C-alpha cells in the first residue's frame, strides 16, 4: 500500500514539472529505503559517473557548439552552403537542412539551432518563394536533424549509458542520418517554388565563401578523420574541437570577446550540461535498482505473450519510443529508458548498435510530435506563431521522418554494414 502511495506521489510530482533529477533521486531513495538498502548507495551511484573516462566529451563538444552558435559562424556557413548548393532545385531549403544538421550535431538539439539559425533561415526561405507554412515546418524539423551525425551529444550520452563504443555509434549513425537528409531534401525539391529566380553556380562566389568559412567547415571532417583515422580518441577529439573552436572564434575571427562573450557562453552551455549530468547521476541509482530487481526480464516475459518475433517487437518499440519522445526530452529518455530496453531488445536478437540508431531516430521525431514536442514550442516562441499553426506546418515533415524511421528500423544493414 505504501509503495502504491509513493509511486502515485512520484508520478504526481513528475507531471507537475518537478525537475527530473529530483524525481529520479526520489524514486531511488524511496526504492532503496523500501528494500532496506542504505540510502548512501544513492550517493555512491552519483559518484560512479565521475569515473567514466568519456564524461568530459559532453561539456567539451557542447561548449564548442555553443561557441559557434554565438559567433558569426551560422552566417558564414549559410553563405558557403548557399554558394555550393543554392543553384539546385530546392537548393535554399537543402542549404537550411545541411546547416541546421551541422549545428545540431554540435549543440545536441537543445533548441539552440532553431534560436540561432531560425531567424536567419526563415526570411531566406520566404524570400525565395517558399510558403510560410513550409518554412516554419522545415525549421521545426531541422532543429533536431543532426542528431545522428558525429559528434552528437545524444549519441555520446547513449554510449555512456548503454556502455556501447561511442566511435562505433558515430559510424553506425552516419548512413541513417544521410537517409533522413535525402528524404527531406527530396521533399524540398518537390516543394521548390516554381516562380523563384533560377540561380547558377558561380565558382568565384563559392571560393570567396569557402575562404571565409573554411576553418569551421573542416571541423566535422576533422573530427571524423581524427577518430576513424586512429589519430585521436573520442575524448581527445572533444578536447581538440573545443580548443580549436575557442581559438578561431576568439582570436582569429574575433567574433567573441574573451571577457564578455566567452563567460556568458560557458554559463549558458553548462546550465544545459549540468542539467543533463545531474539527471544522469540521479537516474543511474534508480535504473540500476530496476535492473537488479529484474524488471526488464519481467517486462520481456509479459511481452513474449503478445509479441512473437523481432519485427513485431520493433514495431511496438517504435510506437513506444514515439510516445516517449513527445513526452520526454531526448537526454532524459536516454538515461531513463535505455537501461530498461537494452536487455529486452537483446532477448529479441536486436544488436545494441542498431537499437541505438532506432532509439535516436525515434527521439528525433519526438521533437516535433504534438502535443509536447519541444521543437514545436521553440518555433512557436521564436516566431511568435500559435502552436496549432506549427503543428500543421511540421506535420508533413513528421510523416517523412516516420518513413525514414521505418527504413532505418527494418533495414539494419544501413547501420550495421560497417561491422560485417
Amino acid at each position, binding site marked *: 500500500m505504501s509503495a502504491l502511495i509513493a509511486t502515485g506521489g512520484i508520478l504526481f510530482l513528475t507531471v507537475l514539472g518537478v525537475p527530473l533529477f529530483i524525481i529520479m533521486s526520489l524514486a531511488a531513495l524511496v526504492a532503496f529505503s523500501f528494500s532496506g538498502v542504505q540510502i548512501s548507495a544513492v550517493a555512491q551511484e552519483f559518484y560512479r559517473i565521475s569515473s567514466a573516462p568519456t564524461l568530459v566529451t559532453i561539456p567539451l563538444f557542447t561548449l564548442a557548439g555553443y561557441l559557434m552558435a554565438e559567433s558569426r559562424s551560422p552566417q558564414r556557413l549559410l553563405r558557403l552552403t548557399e554558394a555550393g548548393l543554392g543553384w539546385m532545385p530546392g537548393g535554399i531549403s537543402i542549404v537550411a537542412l545541411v546547416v541546421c544538421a551541422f549545428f545540431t550535431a554540435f549543440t545536441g538539439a537543445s533548441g539552440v539551432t532553431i534560436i540561432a539559425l531560425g531567424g536567419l533561415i526563415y526570411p531566406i526561405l520566404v524570400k525565395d518563394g517558399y510558403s510560410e507554412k513550409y518554412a516554419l515546418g522545415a525549421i521545426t524539423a531541422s532543429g533536431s536533424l543532426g542528431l545522428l551525425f558525429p559528434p552528437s551529444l545524444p549519441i555520446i550520452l547513449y554510449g555512456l549509458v548503454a556502455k556501447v563504443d561511442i566511435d562505433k555509434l558515430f559510424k553506425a549513425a552516419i548512413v541513417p542520418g544521410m537517409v533522413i537528409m535525402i528524404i527531406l531534401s527530396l521533399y524540398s525539391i518537390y516543394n521548390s517554388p516554381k516562380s523563384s529566380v533560377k540561380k547558377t553556380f558561380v565558382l568565384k562566389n563559392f571560393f570567396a565563401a569557402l575562404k571565409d568559412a573554411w576553418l569551421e567547415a573542416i571541423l566535422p571532417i576533422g573530427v571524423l578523420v581524427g577518430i576513424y583515422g586512429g589519430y585521436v580518441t573520442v575524448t581527445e577529439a572533444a578536447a581538440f574541437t573545443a580548443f580549436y573552436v575557442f581559438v578561431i572564434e576568439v582570436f582569429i575571427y574575433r567574433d567573441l570577446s574573451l571577457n564578455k562573450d566567452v563567460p556568458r557562453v560557458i554559463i549558458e552551455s*553548462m546550465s544545459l550540461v549540468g542539467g543533463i549530468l545531474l539527471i544522469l547521476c540521479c537516474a543511474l541509482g534508480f535504473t540500476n535498482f530496476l535492473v537488479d530487481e529484474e524488471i526488464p526480464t519481467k517486462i520481456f516475459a509479459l511481452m513474449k505473450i503478445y509479441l512473437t518475433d523481432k519485427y513485431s517487437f520493433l514495431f511496438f518499440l517504435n510506437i513506444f519510443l514515439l510516445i516517449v519522445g513527445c513526452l520526454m526530452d531526448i537526454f532524459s529518455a536516454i538515461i531513463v529508458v535505455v537501461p530498461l530496453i537494452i536487455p529486452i531488445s537483446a532477448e529479441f536478437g536486436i544488436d545494441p548498435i542498431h537499437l541505438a540508431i532506432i532509439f535516436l531516430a525515434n527521439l528525433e521525431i519526438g521533437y516535433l510530435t504534438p502535443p509536447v514536442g519541444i521543437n514545436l514550442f521553440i518555433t512557436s516562441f521564436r516566431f511568435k506563431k500559435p502552436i496549432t499553426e506549427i503543428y500543421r506546418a511540421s506535420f508533413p515533415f513528421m510523416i517523412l521522418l516516420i518513413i525514414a524511421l521505418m527504413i532505418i528500423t527494418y533495414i539494419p544493414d544501413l547501420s550495421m554494414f560497417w561491422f560485417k
Partner: protein
Amino acid sequence: MGIVRKIDWAVDKLSSHLLVVSVLVILVFSTLSIVLRWFHINLQWIEPMVRHLVFVCAFLGGVLATGKGTHIGIDLVGKFVEAQNWHNLKTWIARLIMFSSFGVLLWLIKAGIDFTIIEREFTKDAGLGVLQSGDLVAIIPIGLSLIALRFFLLLILSFEGDKI
C-alpha cells in the same frame, strides 16, 4: 527580502565564476595532456582532475539551471495551466515544485553525507596528490547543498511578487 535576494545573487555569482574557471581549466588541461603525450610526457593527475572538475560542473550548472528555471522536467500540467492563463495556479505549482525539490534535496544531502563518512573511513588514493577519494566525494553533499539553498531562496522570493 533584500537580504534573501542578495544571498541568491551571491550564490549565482559564485557558481558562475567557479563554473567559468572550471570549464577553462578542463579545456586547457585536456588539450595540454594530449600535446604533452606527443612529447612522451604523461602527467597522470590531469585525467582524474578533469573528470572531477566535470563532476563539479554538473552541480554548478545545476545551481545555475535552478536559478534560470531551466531544469529538464516533464511539465505536462504546467504547460496546460500556462495555456489556460491561470497565473495564480501556476505560481502555486511553482512553489510546490520548489518546496518538494528542496525536501528531496535535503534527503539526498543526508545520503551524500553518509556516503562521505563511509568513504573517509575506507579512503583510497585518487591520483590527485593529497586529495583522497574520501575528500573528493564531499563534492556531492556540497554541490547538492548549493542547489538546495538556491531552491530555498527562490521559494522565499516567490512570495515577494504575485507571479514567478
